[in-house]
Structure formats: C-alpha cells, structure tokens
C-alpha cells in the first residue's frame, strides 16, 4: 500500500495521537544492573557474564546503586515525582535472549512518575500542527501555547522505570542477520542485564515533528546528566511509537499500532508520518486498524507487520522475591539532586540573558554539549567584548562549525584545529572590518585545514579587506567617472544600479574592498 496524500493533507481531517516509549541503556556505568559484570559495547561475545546474568539456578541479584541514582537523576531532570516506595517485578516470557526466562522490571509504581517536558516547536517543524495560524501569540489550545516563532507544547511523562536489557542474537541462514528464513541463531549475553531505563510519555504528541523534538530534547538531557552515551545507531537509545488516528473533533481514541525500529531522528519522523498516512488511507477506505506491531523499513519507506497482538501478552507480572523493595530516603534523593547539572534549557536561558542572544540562537548553541561549552569558553576569552562578540560567535558556531561537524562524521570539535581563541580572533577580524564575512568563511576553512591562527592566514593570503577610505574613494571616483550614463540613470531613479557600482568597485579592488565603506561612499557621491 502506498500513501497517496501528504501528511499535512491527512492531518486536516484526522488528528494523530502519538505516545513514545524510549529505552536508554545506562552505558556510563561500570557494571550491569544486578551483578558486577563489566558493561562494554563490542567486547568478544560472552566474555562479561556470571551466574546472575546467565540466570543460573540459585544466583542472587543485587541492584547497582549507581543505576538507581541515574534513574532518579533522570526523573529529577524531567520534572517527575520521585516515588520513594517501589519495587522490582518479574516479567515472565520465554525467549533465548533472556536466559532467566523473565525480565526484571518495575510494576505499577516506578521510581519516577508524572513528569513532563515542554517543547519549543518553530520553523518548518511547526507547520505540521493543525490550524496553528488560527491562534494568536500567547493563546492556548489543549496542551500548546502559541509563541512568536511557533508554539510551545507541554508533553506529559507517565513514568520512567528501571529494568534490564536482554542479550544479543544474530540470525544465521536468513538474509543479513534477519530472522526470516534463519535456520540458526547465535546468542551473546554480554548485554544481558545492562541497566535500562524506559520512559513512557502520555499520548500528548500530535505530529511526527513533536515526537522527533521530544526525543532530541530527552537525548540532550540524558547527555547533560551523563547517564548514557545515547547512541541511536548502536542501540543505547531506542524509541518505539504508539500511533492512532481519530477524526478531528472526536474524543475517543482509535486503535493504535506500535512502531519499532526508528533508530534515528529522521526514521522516527518518517516512520510516524508514513504510519499516520497509512492508517488514514485504511480508515477512509472503510477498513479497520489492527492492534499490531509494525516495523519501519527506511529503505522501502513503509511499515510492515511484525506480529498481530491477538490477546494482551500474559507476562504474569509479580514482585521479584529475590530483591528487597525500595523505601528511598530524603537524604538519598537530595544527594542525587545535588548532582543535577545545569540542563540545556536552563543553559539556553542563561545564554540568552547574559549574552543578549535570541532564544533561537541560544537553543541551537546548547543542542550539543560541546558547542555550548565552546561558546562559553569564547565568551570568557572575549572578556569586556562578550556582549558585542556573542552574536557573531553564535553565528559562527551555529552555521560554520555545525556544518563542518555534520560534514565530517565522527569528528569532535575538541579534536579540530578550531579553538575558542581562534574563534575569537576570527570574529574580531570580522568585527574591525579587517576581513569581510565572505572572507571569514574562507579563513574558517583554512584554520580547519592548515591549523594556523586566523590572523596568520589573512596575512599569508594577503586577503586583508581594504577599509581605508582614501584608497576606496579613489576607486569609487574612477568607477563613477567611467560610467557617466549609468550615473545619469541612477540619478533619474534607477536606484537598483547601486549593485552595479558596488560590483565594479569590488572588481577593481580584487574583492578586497570593504563593502560597507564602498556603499557609504557611493551613497554620498550619488546623492
């Protein structure tokens, strides 16, 4: 089946109701959840196991204190209530990746309950929201409030609970490790028992962009509090989505499908968008949506059924008798709270206030921890000029640096030749008109390639911008004298010719004239 109508068309008639389940492995810990085996991605198979994580009879689990601290930290960072009293449960199922035949997880009460995150949705991302333009700035509807540049969405978090990951299976005999057609499987239990936290949102999301932004924001928070490396590629951050549709204005939820394998932000967005369009088409043709698990295939750009849930899975959840319940003390919770660092959202607010940046610029600076730290270092170096240099530095980071990092996958800013000192030097050359903004881009690339200071590159390439009024005036006079007819036309009202004059002057000066000075002189002489 191919989706014919675009997402925006579908969302005119239908409201999409989306909830996310996001799993994060606590990869920054040393050991597993219930045993002292080392956590290590990519180790030789079955080299980090013990009686506990292999589920051998009689082995007794003991929870990792650092994992409990991590989940409490995650809860505090996402505005959750921390439940002092909770416990672990056994979720029973038979599958070879889980040698104990049950997963240790939590029951009705999780460590973290009732949280929320507020999303800033603007730019093209805001376009997916139905009838946003009908709202005035500051006006509210359901869980959103209209802002200057888009809207703010309030997204509830139902819970974050603690559990453990399963082992890894590789299927043999089928195509490319897939289970279809496989004759045998290899099982590696190094990952079995890895501490895993699962965050479940309320069904508050209405567009694929909101889902993507939620995931991005959560990832930034988890990275900031240092509980996971959050690699969607390596699977330490995973996202499943629940989607259903209802007619605009309807109150009741439709039947939902569960979407898996959305292992990048793009896949999360595109998978949900496809599924919304698919469901709309089925419903409009009078068909029925089945409660089923579907798999997003990014190469085919479609979702395929993994399994139909005929009945609710019977996991026979019961309290884990081998693990003592929790009754967390205030001291414990407060000691975790003391470890809470400045979160990206707070950092953005501070950047905007202290350095006179727009909310948009500030938000993009804090998207990555390293660019935020880089910016902060630049501002320290700028000293008294911080307020005037903040905007050009922010532009440099958001545009040039980010583009460079995106184009050079795997490169971290700290490993490049571009230091905060060089960034400041570069924007100072720009600020005092030594170089033009076009030349600044060239200098930036040269710093990256040659590892020299910006001033040295400008010197070596003789690319200094000529700002000397006397020198420029001579050129301007020459250009005007050479084109008397154009000067007449300009004075007769064809003011668009200013571009022609600037171009001629620049050509004379081999691109090194300061455009600002040229414009000023031309305006004066032509008036």
């Amino acid at each position, binding site marked *: 089946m191919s989706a014919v109508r675009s997402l925006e068309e579908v969302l005119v008639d239908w409201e999409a109701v989306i909830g996310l389940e996001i*799993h994060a492995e606590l990869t920054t*810990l*040393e*050991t597993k959840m219930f*045993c*002292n*085996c*080392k956590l290590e991605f990519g180790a030789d*198979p*079955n*080299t*980090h*196991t*013990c009686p506990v*994580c*292999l589920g051998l009879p009689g082995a007794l689990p*003991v*929870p*990792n*204190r650092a994992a*409990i601290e991590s989940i409490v930290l995650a809860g505090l960072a996402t505005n959750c209530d921390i439940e002092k009293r909770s416990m672990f449960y056994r*979720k029973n*199922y*038979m*599958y*070879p*990746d*889980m040698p104990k035949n049950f*997963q240790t997880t939590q029951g009705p009460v999780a460590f973290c309950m009732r949280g929320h995150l507020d999303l800033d949705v603007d730019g093209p991302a805001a376009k997916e929201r139905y009838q946003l333009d009908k709202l005035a700035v500051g006006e509210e509807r359901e869980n959103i409030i209209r802002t200057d540049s888009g809207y703010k969405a309030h997204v509830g978090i139902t819970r974050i609970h603690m559990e453990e*990951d*399963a082992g890894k299976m*590789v*299927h043999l005999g*089928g195509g490319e490790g897939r*289970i279809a057609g*496989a*004759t*045998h*499987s*290899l*099982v*590696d*239990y190094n990952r079995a028992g890895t501490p*895993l936290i*699962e965050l479940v949102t309320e069904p508050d999301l209405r567009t694929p962009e909101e889902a993507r932004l939620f995931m991005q924001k959560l990832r930034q928070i988890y990275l900031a509090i240092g509980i996971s490396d959050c690699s969607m590629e390596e699977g330490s951050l995973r996202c*499943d989505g629940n989607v259903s549709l209802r007619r605009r204005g309807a109150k009741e939820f439709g039947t939902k499908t569960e979407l898996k394998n959305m292992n990048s932000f793009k896949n999360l967005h595109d998978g949900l968008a496809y599924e919304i369009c698919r469901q709309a088409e089925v419903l409009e043709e009078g068909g029925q949506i089945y409660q089923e698990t579907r798999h997003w295939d990014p190469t085919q750009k479609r979702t395929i059924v*993994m*399994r139909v849930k005929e009945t609710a*899975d019977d*996991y*026979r959840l019961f*309290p884990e*008798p081998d*693990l*003592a*319940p*929790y*009754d967390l*003390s205030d001291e*414990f919770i407060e000691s975790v709270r003391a470890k809470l660092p400045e979160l990206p959202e707070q950092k953005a607010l501070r950047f905007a206030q202290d350095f006179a940046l727009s909310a948009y610029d500030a938000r993009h600076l804090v998207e990555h921890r390293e660019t935020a730290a880089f910016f902060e270092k630049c501002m320290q170096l700028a000293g008294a000029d911080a307020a005037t240099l903040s905007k050009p530095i922010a532009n440099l980071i958001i545009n040039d640096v980010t583009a460079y990092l995106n184009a050079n996958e795997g490169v971290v800013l700290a490993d490049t030749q571009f230091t905060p000192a060089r960034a400041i030097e570069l924007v100072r050359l720009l600020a005092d008109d030594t170089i033009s903004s076009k030349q600044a881009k060239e200098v930036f690339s040269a710093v990256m390639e040659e590892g020299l200071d910006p001033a040295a590159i400008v010197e070596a390439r003789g690319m200094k911008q000529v700002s000397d009024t006397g020198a420029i005036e001579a050129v301007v006079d020459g250009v005007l004298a050479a084109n008397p007819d154009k000067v007449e036309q300009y004075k007769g009202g064809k003011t668009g010719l200013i571009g022609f004059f600037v171009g001629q002057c620049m050509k004379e000066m081999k691109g090194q004239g300061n455009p600002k000075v040229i414009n000023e002189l031309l305006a004066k002489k032509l008036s």
Partner: protein
Amino acid sequence: MTEHLSEHDVRDIAEYVRIGLTDDEVEQMTVDLNAIIDSLRPITEYELDGVEPTFHPIGTLSNVMRDDMVVPGFSQEVALENASKTQDGSFLIPSILGEGGDR
C-alpha cells in the same frame, strides 16, 4: 479432593513454562497439583480482619544496593561450558520464530 485445576489447565501451564508432558504425566500432575492446592486450604481459614497485607515477601529489608565496581565473572570458555552447541564464542541455537518481550 476438590478439582481446582483441570487437565486442560495443567496442559496450559505446562505450555507456559515450556515443559513437555505425556498424557500419563498430565493426569498424574493434575492429581498432584490439586493435592498441593488442597494442602494450602488452612490459610484461607485464618481470621485476618485488621491484618495489613504483606506487600513483599522479603519483609522489613529495603534499599539493598551494591557499589558499581567490576568483579570478573566467567571466562568465555566457562560461560559456554553447558551449551550443547557453540560457534564463534556464542551459544548456537535453532532458529526461534517470533520475538521476545517488548523492550
């Protein structure tokens, strides 16, 4: 003896826990399980008014945790010792259709 569980129930339970039982064994197991449930009958006869439910079998113990420190476990060789088949350091098993829990 009361029949708490039918043979049908016992077959379902055996399927759940992946234990293969012959027809004779199902018959015997049904008798045994019903006898076990019968033996628990006195519990239902206690006077329990005003008694707080026990919410966890461990009792008063709580907040048992350990430090995040590595202790070497099994070598790969030992980990695989009980496996009937292995390949490249992994357990080799026949293909299982379907999938595990929803993690």
